């Protein structure tokens, strides 16, 4: 079946530009997560949605980062006025479970390069 998809797969932005990264989770998955992965590092949590509700955004590094999931399915991570330190792979993951331990299914990621 279809997995988690993300678009675009690669994005080059000039410093100061705004970008929008899209995530299509597995159909029916309640939970959706965004992670930032720098080269050679583990994924770092950014934010978590349960359906359309953003229950935790404690990992967003600054107010330039904004995420939404208005209808409880597709999610968008927006970064305003991009900086070079924003260069990373942005991973989206979804999970079927609403609560408790669960398996996360990751998408292929969007590699963002800020020049």
């Amino acid at each position, binding site marked *: 079946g279809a997995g988690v998809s993300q678009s675009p797969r690669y994005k080059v932005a000039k410093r100061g530009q705004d970008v929008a990264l899209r995530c299509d989770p597995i159909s029916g998955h309640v939970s959706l997560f965004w992670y930032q992965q720098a080269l050679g590092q583990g994924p770092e*949590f950014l934010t978590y949605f349960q359906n359309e509700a953003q229950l935790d955004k404690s990992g967003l590094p600054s107010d330039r980062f904004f995420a939404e999931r208005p209808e409880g399915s597709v999610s968008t991570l927006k970064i305003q006025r991009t900086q070079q330190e924003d260069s990373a792979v942005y991973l989206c993951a979804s999970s079927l479970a609403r609560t*408790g331990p669960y398996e996360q299914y990751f998408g292929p990621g969007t590699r963002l390069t800020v020049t």
Partner: protein
Amino acid sequence: GQQVMQIPQYQHVQEGEDFTTYCNSSTTLSNIQWYKQRPGGHPVFLIQLVKSGEVKKQKRLTFQFGEAKKNSSLHITATQTTDVGTYFCAGPIGYYGQNFVFGPGTRLSVLP
């Protein structure tokens, strides 16, 4: 804040040798998950451990969760070239227990 550490950072083994990576948390975990990320790929879920002292096996892979639920290990017997990748452990944080702190990973290279 909660920290999850892993050792070693890198491991190079000859095909057929065994491999072990260790994961340590600064706090007690309700559960721990392991993921594998192939070069250029995305993390793929391997297993979840919930009970203190739990041991689970998947073919050549053996996962353990410590008695104090603060550490875990992944052991691969007789490595194969298909085992190449980075292995991450992850533990839940946050009120809802839905956010996970990932360790920095152990990168495994297998020489044929």
